[in-house]
């Protein structure tokens, strides 16, 4: 058993061989290069996703406006379809069928556009 002073001295004088630090730095720089590459790739992907989201938003707004104009120009669905139902839910659906179908078409078009852009990137990975 040692006393407090001896222990303090021992801990204070602790100075083990830590080896050649140059190896650690060289290896670290190599790994940092790899991390930087991944970070750059992720940043590029994020930028593309943001751009796509902006395009989809703008396209959705334009197509929604066009849909509203067309829907107002067309005759009301109740004038074309004759349905004898008392269900308020069904009546509501039929009265607004042109909006529902139009929205679905817009969603499908945007989804298809996104898929086409993704497919083009996969075919030309150098551009991404």
């Amino acid at each position, binding site marked *: 058993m040692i006393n407090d002073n001896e222990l303090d001295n021992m801990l204070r*004088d602790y100075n083990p061989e830590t*080896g050649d630090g140059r190896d650690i730095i060289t290896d670290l720089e190599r790994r940092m290069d790899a991390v930087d590459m991944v970070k750059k790739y992720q940043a590029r992907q994020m930028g593309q996703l943001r751009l796509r989201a902006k395009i989809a938003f703008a396209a959705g707004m334009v197509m929604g406006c066009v849909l509203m104009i067309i829907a107002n120009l067309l005759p009301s669905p109740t004038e074309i379809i004759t349905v004898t139902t008392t269900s308020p839910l069904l009546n509501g659906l039929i009265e607004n069928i042109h909006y529902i179908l139009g929205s679905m078409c817009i969603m499908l078009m945007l989804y298809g556009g996104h898929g086409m852009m993704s497919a083009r990137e996969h075919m030309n990975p150098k551009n991404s």
Partner: protein
Amino acid sequence: MTREQFISTIKREQEALMRFLLALCCGDHDDASDIAQETLIKAYIALDRYDEREQFAAWIRRIAYNTFINHRKKRQREATQPIEQARHIAGGQEADSKFDNEELHRALAALSHSERLAIVLHYIEGFKINEITQITGCSEAAVKKQLQRGREELKRRITR
């Protein structure tokens, strides 16, 4: 902090970091080197989250300690032999040649991870108790207790 600043800071800090890890790993150079590499790359990945008001040395030691704990857990899961036995086999040849260090390493190995960390940070690295609380996440009272217990255990284990 830019990449260049990070490298120059690491060049200044790496020896102290290795000494810290060697003490935590009780003289096992291989383990200490592996953990140091992992710590440094983790620090670089997390550099965006580093708050420059915080001391870099404390921040990197927190990452190093967490990496050390994960490393030990992984070892325990993988090892079929008890960890203490494995450590002596692995560290035997590479262990520091100085007798004092060897004796200290053996005594440090008998402490719990938290006691060892507190002893190394306070007495070897010179961190204050309030800085240790930031690194370990323990309360001041807990750190003081770890230091007291650790000291008593070291004094009992080291003979002259």
